[in-house]
C-alpha cells in the first residue's frame, strides 16, 4: 500500500465502494437522482406546454423568442446559481421560503436552468413535423384541438429526447447546486459537488467511485436517447 499508485489504489477502492453499496455513495447518488429527476419533471411541466404554445401561436417576435431560448441553452450554471441564491437568500424576495441550502432550492435552481433547453427543444421537435403532415391532418378533418394533439403525439419521441437531454444537463452540472445547495454533507451534497470536494481533499477513491456512477447515469441517458431517436 505504501508504494502503490494512488490513482490505481483509488480505482480499486472506488469499485469496492460501489460493489459494497457504501452508504455514503448510495445516499449521494439517490439525492442526486431525486433532485435532478424532480427538477426535470417540473421543468417539463412548465416548458413543454410553453414550447407548444410558442409553436402553435403566431405572434410578433416569435423568432426572437426562439433564438433567445437557443442562446439560453448555454446559460452558465454559476449565473443561474447566483441569481437563484440572491432570490432565495434572506435579503431576497423569496427568502421567507427558507429554501436556500435545501434540496428544494436545488430543485428550483436546476428547474430554471433547463427550462430554456426544454422549451427550445420542444419548439424544435414540433417544428420537425413537416408541412405536408400538417396538411394531411387538416385534410383528414381534424379540429383545431385534434390537430394540436396529433402533432404533439407525432413529435412525442423528439420531445422525449429533449427531456432526456435536459435531465442530462441537470444531473451533470455543478455550479448551481454548489452555490444554492452549499454542498452540505448529508443534506445537499450531490454527485458533482461531492466529486469536487473529495478531489480537493485528495480523497480520490470516493471521487472516482462517484465519477463512475455519474458516467453511468450519463451513459444510461445516452442509451435511452438513442433508443428514442431510433423510433
Amino acid at each position, binding site marked *: 500500500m505504501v508504494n502503490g499508485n494512488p490513482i490505481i489504489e483509488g480505482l480499486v477502492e472506488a469499485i469496492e465502494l460501489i460493489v459494497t453499496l457504501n452508504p455514503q455513495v448510495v445516499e449521494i447518488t439517490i439525492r442526486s437522482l431525486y433532485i435532478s429527476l424532480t427538477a426535470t419533471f417540473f421543468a417539463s411541466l412548465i416548458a413543454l406546454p410553453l414550447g407548444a404554445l410558442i409553436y402553435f401561436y403566431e405572434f410578433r417576435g416569435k423568432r426572437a423568442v426562439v433564438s433567445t431560448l437557443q442562446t439560453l441553452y448555454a446559460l452558465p450554471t454559476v449565473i443561474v446559481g447566483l441569481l437563484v441564491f440572491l432570490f432565495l437568500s434572506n435579503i431576497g424576495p423569496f427568502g421567507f421560503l427558507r429554501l436556500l441550502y435545501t434540496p428544494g432550492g436545488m430543485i428550483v435552481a436546476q428547474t430554471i436552468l433547463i427550462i430554456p433547453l426544454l422549451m427550445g427543444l420542444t419548439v424544435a421537435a414540433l417544428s420537425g413535423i413537416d408541412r405536408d403532415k400538417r*396538411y394531411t391532418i387538416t385534410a383528414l*378533418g381534424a*379540429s383545431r384541438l385534434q390537430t394540436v394533439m396529433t402533432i404533439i*403525439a407525432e413529435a412525442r419521441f423528439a420531445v422525449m429526447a429533449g427531456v432526456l437531454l435536459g435531465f442530462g444537463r441537470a444531473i451533470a452540472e455543478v455550479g448551481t447546486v454548489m452555490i444554492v445547495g452549499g454542498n452540505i454533507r448529508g443534506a445537499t451534497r450531490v454527485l458533482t459537488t461531492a466529486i469536487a470536494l473529495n478531489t480537493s481533499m485528495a480523497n480520490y477513491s470516493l471521487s472516482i467511485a462517484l465519477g463512475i456512477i455519474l458516467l453511468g447515469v450519463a451513459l444510461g441517458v445516452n442509451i435511452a436517447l438513442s433508443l428514442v431517436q431510433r423510433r
Partner: protein
Amino acid sequence: MAIIEAHQIRKSYGNLEVLHDVDLSVREGEILGLIGPSGSGKSTLLRILDLIEPPNSGKLSIFGIDTVKDHGRWLDLRRRMGMLFQRPIVFNASVYDNVAMGLRYRGTSRDDIDRKVKEALEAVGLSRYVKSRATDLSGGEQQRVALSRVLVTDPEILFLDEPTANLDPTSTATIEAIVTRLNREANMTVVISTHDLAQGQRLAHRVGVMIEGMIAQTGASREIFHEPKDRRIARFVGVQNIIPGRVVSRSDGLAVVEARGKQILSATPTPGEEVDMVIRGEDISLHRREPGFEEAENLFPATVTTIEPTAPFVNVTVHCGCDLAALVTARRAETLGLHDGMQVWVSIQAKAVHLIPRVQSG
C-alpha cells in the same frame, strides 16, 4: 350540377403569386384531371379547393355552399372531402392507427372504425400489415395506407395531388384502379393533378391544363392533345411542330396557310391572319415514293436531316423550307430505310394542322 365552383381564385405566398384568377368548375361524379408542368400551381389549387388553406381572394363554393361567407362550416365541409398527397405521408404509429385517424376525428364508434379500417386495408392489399409500424413500409405501401386513410372516411370529393409520382407500377395500378372503381360505383367526384399526360388521359373524363397559375384550357383530353389553345399548352402536351405562318385564303372550310413560301392546308377554323400551325409529330407521315393524292391533304417532298431514336419511336426531322419533326414507329423507319439526306414524301392531313393565334414575342 357543379359540386365545386371556383371564380377568380388568387393565392400568393409573400411576393410570389402562385394562382392568378383561377376559374374552375367541377361536375358531380366526374373525374377531372389537372395537368400542367411542375410549379404551375396545381397543388396549391387542390389545397384551396379542399379548404386546407384559404385563397387571398376569389369565390369558392363547394356542395353549393359559399365558403367565403361561411367560414364556420369549413370543418364540416372538409370532413366530406379527402385528399391524397404526392409524397406518401404516414404517421409514426401502426398502420391500423394511421388508417383510423380520420374516423377518430369524426367520433366514429370503435366497432365501425374496426370494421372500416380492416375493409379498407383489404381493398388495398395491406391486411397483413395491420399491426406494423407505418413508417417501416415501402413508399408504395405507405401511399396505399394514405389512400385507405382517406377512403375510410367516404369522401364525396376526392383530391389526388400527383398521387403516383415516384411510385412503383403495382402501387400506381392499384391506386388508379381503386379511384376509377369508386368513381363508377360510388359516384365519387375526383380531381386529380398529374404531370403525367398519359395518366390524365387514362383516368380523367375532362382535363384542365394549368399553366403559370391559371387554368389555360379545359376539355376532353383528345381536344387538349389535338387542339391546344395556345403555344404554351401545345408545348406542354408535347406538340413537336409549332410553325408561324399567315392565312392567305379560305374556302370550303379549308384555309391555306403560307409559311416560308410553302402553302399548307388546314381544316381548323382560322383564329386570325397571323397564326401558328400546330402539328403533332405522329400526324406526319413519311413515304419513300409519291403516294396517291387524297383530298384535303398536304403532300410535298422533303429531305431527311436528322434521325433520333426514342424507342419505340424514331424522331425524324425533315426539311422542306421549314423543319418538320415527324414521329415514326421504329419498324416503319426500318421499312422506309431512312438515312440522312434521303429524299422523302411528306403527307399531312389538313385536319391534323391545328391553327392558334400567334402572340407577338411568344
